[in-house]
C-alpha cells in the first residue's frame, strides 16, 4: 500500500499536507501522533472514505480507479466507532461482512471470526445491548469475515484499523492486536492507528509519527520512539526507557521531568 503526496481538505481547511506513506504486506504498520495530528484522516484517505489529492495505490492499483466491491475484496476497514440503526443481532452484523466479501459461500466464517475476537456464543445477542468494547470487537469480527484469508490469489489483503483497542480492557487489547499480528504473519498487511505507545512499541513493525497534518518521521519502534519524538511531537519532556532484555521501548509517565 502506497500513498504519495496525499492532501486532504475538509471544507476549506487542509488537514493533510502532502503525506507520503508506505506499508508493506506481512507487517503491522502503526500510525501514531497527538490528537488532531491527522492520523484518522490519513487512514480515511487510505481507505478511500475521504476524497484526497495525490496518489494512493493498493496492490499496485490506484484506489480511485477501483470499484467499491473491488476495494472491499482487498481491504477491510474498522472505524473508530459504529452505531447501528436497527436491532440487528451480533450474527446478522458479522454476516454482513460475509455477504460483501469474496468468501460468500462459507457460512461458518462469522462464528469463527467471533471466536477470534473472544465473542464465541454471542451470535444471537442484540448488538445494541452490548458494551462499547464488545461492539467494537463485533465490528472487528465483521471486518475479519470480509477479508478472511490474509492473501487472495497471491495478493495480500489489508486490514485498516482505526484505534481498535481504544475502548477495550487490557486483556482484549492483546486479543485484538494478536488478531492483527496473525493477519500480518499470514501475509496480509495491517495499518493501524494507535494511541497507546507501549502497545505500538510491542506490536508494530513500522511506525509513522504524524504531527500537524504531516509525517514527522517514521521508522521501527526502536528507532522512532525516542526522547526527541516525545519532546517535538507530543511536547513533553519524557525520556523513553527500554527493557534491558527484549530491547522493547516503553514509555513510563512516572519518568516525566518537572519543568
Amino acid at each position, binding site marked *: 500500500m502506497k500513498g504519495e503526496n496525499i492532501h486532504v481538505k475538509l471544507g476549506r481547511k487542509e488537514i493533510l499536507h502532502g503525506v507520503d506513506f508506505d506499508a508493506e504486506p506481512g507487517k503491522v504498520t502503526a500510525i501514531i501522533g497527538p490528537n488532531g495530528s491527522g492520523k484518522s484522516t490519513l487512514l480515511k484517505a487510505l481507505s478511500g472514505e475521504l476524497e484526497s489529492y495525490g496518489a494512493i495505490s493498493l496492490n499496485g492499483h490506484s484506489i480511485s480507479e477501483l470499484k467499491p466491491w473491488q476495494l472491499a475484496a482487498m481491504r477491510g476497514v474498522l472505524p473508530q466507532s459504529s452505531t*447501528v440503526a436497527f436491532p440487528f443481532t451480533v450474527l446478522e452484523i458479522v454476516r*454482513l461482512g460475509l455477504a460483501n*466479501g469474496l468468501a460468500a459461500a462459507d457460512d461458518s466464517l462469522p462464528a469463527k471470526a467471533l471466536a477470534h475476537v473472544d465473542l464465541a456464543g454471542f*451470535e444471537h445477542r442484540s448488538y445494541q445491548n452490548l458494551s462499547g468494547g464488545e461492539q467494537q470487537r463485533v465490528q472487528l469480527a465483521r471486518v475479519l469475515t470480509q477479508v478472511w484469508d490474509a492473501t487472495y490469489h497471491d495478493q495480500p489483503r489489508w486490514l485498516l484499523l482505526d484505534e481498535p483497542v481504544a475502548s477495550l480492557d487490557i486483556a482484549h487489547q492483546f486479543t485484538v492486536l494478536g488478531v492483527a499480528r496473525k493477519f500480518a504473519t499470514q501475509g496480509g498487511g495491517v495499518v493501524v492507528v494507535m494511541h497507546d505507545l507501549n502497545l505500538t512499541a510491542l506490536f508494530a513493525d513500522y511506525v509513522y509519527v504524524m504531527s500537524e497534518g504531516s509525517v514527522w518521521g517514521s521508522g521501527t519502534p526502536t528507532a522512532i520512539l525516542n526522547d526527541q519524538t516525545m519532546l517535538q511531537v507530543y511536547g513533553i519532556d519524557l525520556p523513553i526507557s527500554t527493557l534491558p532484555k527484549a530491547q522493547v521501548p516503553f514509555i513510563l509517565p512516572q519518568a516525566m521531568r518537572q519543568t
Partner: protein
Amino acid sequence: MTLAMDHDGLNVAALDRRVTARRVTLALLALLVFTSICSISVGASDASVRAAFADLIAGRDISDLDRIVLWDIRLPRLAMGILVGAALAVSGVVMQGLFRNPLADPGIVGVSAGAGLGAISAIILGAYLPASILAWVGNSLVAVAAFLGGWTSVLLLYRVSTRGGQTSVATMLLAGIALGALSGAVSGVLVYMADDQQLRDLTFWGMGSLAGATWTKAATAAPIILISVFTAQFLARALNGMAMGEAVAQHMGIPVQRSKNIAILAVAGATGAAVAVSGGIGFIGIVVPHLLRLATGPDHHRLLMNSALLGASLLLCADMISRLIVAPAELPIGIVTAILGAPVFLWILLRRHGTMGM
C-alpha cells in the same frame, strides 16, 4: 450449544430469523389471497356479489349488474388497494433504511405533502385550464398533478441536501420538514380559493380513499408502483450496510451514492403514484415495517418483500373496515389507518424513549 438469552429473556439461540422470515413470506402470501377474496366479497352492494364471484371463477355466466359491481368497482378497487398498500409500506422501509431511523416515512420528508399540493392545485386551479388541455388529460388531471408534485419535492429536496455528490441525511430530513411545511402552506392558501364542491373533493382526497378506484387510475399507478417496488428489492444489501453508517457501507463495497439515488427515486415513484390515486393514507409505511422488524428482525432482504405483502393486506383490511363501519356510506380509509396506526406510532416512540435517547 450454549443457550443465549436476549434482553427480553427469550431463548433465541436455536432461532435463525432468516428461516422465520421465509416462513412469514409464505404466510403473508396466504393472508393476501385471503384478504383479497374478502375484499371482493364485502361491500355496500348486496351479497349476491359473492355468489356471482363464485360463478365467475367457475366459468358460469353472471348478470350485467353483478358484472359491473365486480369488474368496474370491486376489482379495480382491489388492484389499487394492493398497489397502494405495497407502495406505501415499501416506501416506508426504504426511507427508514436511508435515514437510519425507524420513524422516517415519506410523509416526514415532504414527499406526500408535495404530492398533496399537486393534487390540490389540480382540483382548484384545474377549472381555469384551457379546455383543450383539460380534454387531453381528462380525469387523470389530479393524478398527474399529484405525481408531479411528489416528484418535484424529491428533486428539490435532493438539490438542497446534496453537495458534491454526497447526500447529508440530516440536511435532507430538515429540508424535508421545511418543504413539507411550505407545501402545506401553499395548499392552505389554495383551499381558501375553493368553492363548496371543491372543498368536499379536497376533504375526501385529503383523508385518503380508495373509493374512486377505476381501472384507469389503477393502470396509471401500476407501472410506476411495480417498477419502484421491484427496484427496491435490490436495495436490501445497501440498506443493511447503511444501517451501520455510510462509511461502513462503502468499506463493505456498497456503491453508496448510487444506492441512495436509486432509493430516493424508488420512494418518489411509489409514494407519488400512491398519493396520486388514493390521497393521504398515513401510517402504513410506519406500522408495517415495524411489525415485521419485531417478527423477523431488521434484515432488509426479506423485510422489503414481506412489507409489500403485509402492506397490501393491511390496506385491504382497512378498506374493508372503512366500507363496513358506516355502511352503506363509507369512511375515508385514511381515517381508519390513522386510528389504527397513530397509537402504534406513539407506542414505538415510547419504547424507543430511554433506550435510544430519542
